């Protein structure tokens, strides 16, 4: 090749070479299995690689409108509010290195509403973000805490909390830091309580209860976090063994009795009850939080698998299930008196279903309404052990024709893994999800029957219609989706699905006409949208590449 030809080729190479570039967004792959939330009227998909949330809103004719809401760089976590209508996204931000074209961005919280509006709180006093997030059901507070599941700084304080007041205006804000008093423990669970009926000097207050692996911490959240926390280390009275909480139950109290807490332990036979007494000075002024807990240890003979406060005709009791002894123990939180109730099976879980029952608990020949409102609890096991299957109703008082504290078993022959609540108007129903079985059950609390529904595989996922009229069943990454009517017929209907299913979400539309959005997340994000009422194949619409649009 002579010199002239080389020169011309070089010239061509120069002019054909591109210049400029494109937004980094296009080089980020779509994430498989993104965090997805049903925000009642829209479906939110956290598109973490693109630092945004996609809101999929079904409209008439099964149209699907996609709106993109930008969030902070480096999504760490996301969670919804208690009513499910608001999404909170925690982002790590970005620290610009030398020569970095991207500017520095502080960690942030983005609050995304179902209508697409967003507020962003830039946490100005943070360098290293925290990935754990707990949201106050009241919508006032958001707490960040260290998480082992997301990328975290090299050195972290596991007892560090960052409290953010969500009622303040968005923009640059300061998170209130707080370090839990620790005796070597690590926080495990966070519970925001409803307002508790605390001693008169305090009044009704919500608390944040932090369960660590060695005790409890009780906090009254304040913007400046000036109130001291109350730490309750849990130790056995007879040994030096550290006791680990495995779950709590909260009773808010009322005018007749104060608030109380129950704590079951993972490694001890005791169940702990806490009540609250005033903490005031000689003049009656509150000291510290204005209250102190009194702690009682109640030996129930075995490790309690579940606890709940129940109303019996003898008053408020803390019910603890002890499957190793096939019994339940009722504990008076005031006197710590205990009453054992033998159970026909080693039930491991209980749910109070009194409200769902309404008047349905009364039998046909009941002639008088009960004078004391006593609870009915649903017992189920959640065990993977065959032979421990079944559910039972536990009457905690004289109700209609039922005898005192009777156990009424229901003939469910599979291991129950979860009990799913059904919203009004079918709240008398519960859906029993089984484990390793090709059946799920529709439990009718009113007539205490359990209708079985057979499935082609044991790997069935269930979700309940927000309107309470259908239960959706599908096989993850299969092409099977069915809707079972929760009315009188329990009639299953299948949908025509042509791509692997990653999730099924019923989303409200106008005029009480919901749509169901079936997501497909393999090779991108796609969706099939049906009218959730008619389930008409001919009006369904299919969508693909849902996260490819809306370039920044």
């Amino acid at each position, binding site marked *: 090749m002579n010199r002239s030809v080389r020169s011309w080729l070089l010239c061509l190479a120069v002019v054909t070479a591109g210049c400029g570039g*494109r937004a980094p967004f*296009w080089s980020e792959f779509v994430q498989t299995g993104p965090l997805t939330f049903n925000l009642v009227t829209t479906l939110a998909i956290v598109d973490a690689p693109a630092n945004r949330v996609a809101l999929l809103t079904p409209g008439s004719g099964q149209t699907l409108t996609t709106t993109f809401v930008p969030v902070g760089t480096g999504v760490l976590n996301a969670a919804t509010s208690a009513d499910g209508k608001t999404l909170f996204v925690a982002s790590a931000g970005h620290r610009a290195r030398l020569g970095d074209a991207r500017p520095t961005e502080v960690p942030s919280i983005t609050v995304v509403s179902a209508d697409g509006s967003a507020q962003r709180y830039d946490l100005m006093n943070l360098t290293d973000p925290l990935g754990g997030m707990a949201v106050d059901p009241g919508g006032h507070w958001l707490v960040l805490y260290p998480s082992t599941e997301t990328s975290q700084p090299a050195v972290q304080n596991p007892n560090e909390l960052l409290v953010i007041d969500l009622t303040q205006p968005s923009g640059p804000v300061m998170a209130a830091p707080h370090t839990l008093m620790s005796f070597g423990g690590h926080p495990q669970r966070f519970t925001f309580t409803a307002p508790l009926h605390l001693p008169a000097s305090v009044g009704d207050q919500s608390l944040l209860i932090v369960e660590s692996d060695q005790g409890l911490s009780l906090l009254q959240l304040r913007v400046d976090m000036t109130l001291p926390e109350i730490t309750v280390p849990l130790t056995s009275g007879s040994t030096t063994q550290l006791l680990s909480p495995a779950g709590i139950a909260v009773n808010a109290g009322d005018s007749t009795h104060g608030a109380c807490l129950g704590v079951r332990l993972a490694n001890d036979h005791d169940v702990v009850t806490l009540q609250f007494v005033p903490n005031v000075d000689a003049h009656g002024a509150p000291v510290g939080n204005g209250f102190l807990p009194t702690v009682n240890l109640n030996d129930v003979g075995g490790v309690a698998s579940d606890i709940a406060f129940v109303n019996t005709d003898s008053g408020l009791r803390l019910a603890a299930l002890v499957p190793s002894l096939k019994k339940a123990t009722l504990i008076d939180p005031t006197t710590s008196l205990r009453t054992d109730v033998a159970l026909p099976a080693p039930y491991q879980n209980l749910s109070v279903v009194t409200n769902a029952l309404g008047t349905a608990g009364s039998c046909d020949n009941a002639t008088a309404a009960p004078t004391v409102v006593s609870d009915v609890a649903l017992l189920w096991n959640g065990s993977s052990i065959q032979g421990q299957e079944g559910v039972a109703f536990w009457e905690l008082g004289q109700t209609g024709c039922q005898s005192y504290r009777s156990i009424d078993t229901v003939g469910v022959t599979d291991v129950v893994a979860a009990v799913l609540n059904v919203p009004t108007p079918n709240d008398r129903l519960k859906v029993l999800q089984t484990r390793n079985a090709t059946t799920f059950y529709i439990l009718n609390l009113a007539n205490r029957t359990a209708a079985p529904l057979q499935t082609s595989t044991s790997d069935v996922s269930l979700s309940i219609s927000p309107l309470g009229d259908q239960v959706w069943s599908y096989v993850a990454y299969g092409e099977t989706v069915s809707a079972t009517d929760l009315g009188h017929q329990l009639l299953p209907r299948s949908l025509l699905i042509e791509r692997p299913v990653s999730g099924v979400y019923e989303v409200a539309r106008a005029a009480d006409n919901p749509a169901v959005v079936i997501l497909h997340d393999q090779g*991108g994000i796609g969706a099939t949208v049906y009218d959730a009422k008619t389930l008409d194949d001919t009006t369904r619409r299919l969508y693909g590449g849902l996260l490819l649009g*809306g370039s920044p």
Partner: protein
Amino acid sequence: MIRTGVSAALALTLASAVARAQAPAEPTPTLDWNQVPAPPPAAAGPPRWMLAAGVRTLYIKGAGYDPFSSDDAFVQFSLTGTGAVVRRDELSLAAGVGLDVGASSAHARGSATDLHMTRVSALVEGRYQPASRLYFFARLAPGLLHGSAQIDDASSPAGATMQATFDTFAVDLGAGAALRLGTVARPQIRAWLVADGGYGWASAQSLLLSPSLGSDSNKAGSLDLGSLAPRGGFFRVALALSYD
């Protein structure tokens, strides 16, 4: 990023043509130069007929092009044919037609994308030749642009490719120069290196991509990739042959 095979093929074509243009003429022993009439003198003024083939690179700055390329360049094979309709001294006015064909491929968030654009244009060109081996020109080229965009996303219905096509008016306005390289085979046929640049305009197109599902197309939603504005500055290098 595939910058299409057009570039490479064209480079080879040009290189080959240039090599031919510069290669020494093969001896023709049977030809008696004394008995052959002398070749006509080089025509004064710009060439009468010209056919040019080259590479046109359009720089599309708009974000709508981002899914289809990792940079802003859109490269096309460019073919033009012109004929002088008016010649006076070193000035001339030429008219002709042009064809620009090209494609760009990329990956958008992991999904393969393709954009094809073909432009057919009529052109009017004014030329000024201050020297026998060099002339300058200015060109106006209105035309029709046909484009097709597609994306292969496995989440699309039935795994089908989603695509969209568009047709729109387009116009190039540019100027350049041509340098005569020499004669080819016969004195009337000359080789030129032509370079020009300017601005290519076309109206923005909304890219709503849909899968091809035939009679079931009403069951599928569209993917909105935003607006593609296939316009921007361009630069072209071509090798041309002229005939007088």
